[in-house]
């Protein structure tokens, strides 16, 4: 099975998680663990440009991270979602809950 890779890097005030591969019930644990480490503690962005597919398991992880960030007064962005991940987000019916930027360069200072 193709797994996912989740790499964390610092970019100024931001912690950016870059995700590659398919996010589903079999693979979402790694994303969940990494987001729980950072969400609500630091300003965080998740780069979805390398995501090949995403089910509600991945959407649930992102929503939890967004909620943690809001509760703690931290910033959160989804970066450059691939076509399938953007469609998955749109299909929830509450895409406006996912603050999105087209590129990592657009992250505010």
């Amino acid at each position, binding site marked *: 099975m193709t797994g996912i890779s989740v790499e964390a890097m610092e970019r100024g005030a931001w912690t950016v998680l870059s995700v590659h591969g398919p996010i*589903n019930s079999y693979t979402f644990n790694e994303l969940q663990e990494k987001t729980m480490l950072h969400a609500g503690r630091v300003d965080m962005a998740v780069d979805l440009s390398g995501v*090949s*597919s995403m089910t*509600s398991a991945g959407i649930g992880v992102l929503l939890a991270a967004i909620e943690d960030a809001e509760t703690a007064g931290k910033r959160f962005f989804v970066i450059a979602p691939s076509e399938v991940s953007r469609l998955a987000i749109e*299909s929830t019916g509450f895409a406006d809950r996912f603050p999105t930027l087209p590129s990592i360069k657009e992250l505010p200072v």
Partner: protein
Amino acid sequence: MPLIAPPSRRRTPQESLGAAPRARSRIRLSPGGTIFDEYDGFIRSLGFLNGREAAKLIVAGDEVLDNLMTHGEISAAGVCVLVTRRERSGLTLGFFVDSHREFAEFTRHADERDGARPRFDQRERRWHGLGLTMCRNIASSVSYRSGELVDRVFLSFDVEPRPARSAP
């Protein structure tokens, strides 16, 4: 000069009826963790889908497979997937699996879930009904058919205009 007419090609039943052309393809997916790779690869290989259509079928289909896997409904026989495209009536994505008790229970209450919003369970820290909502928002219709031998899930999608295909 001999007046010999060229041999005429017999018209297909579809052409005789004036029906729109149809494209279809199927695959049997093995149970287990590779099922998503197999399915996504299959959908991406279908030349009769454009990039947007393939993306829709991947998101909605992965969600169906995720649910079937999570609830242990896939037997050793795996899952048969059928994709059909008709220019007039659109795309149909069908899943066929060996009959399972949990699926029958789900279909019994599926109508009650129509229009229900997904909800977050604080105690379990997970969403309920989110995948179903995603499928309903992507597809024009979603239906579940429980059977004595085979359970079926059908999703219909509108066809997109035909731009050049791009990878999703």
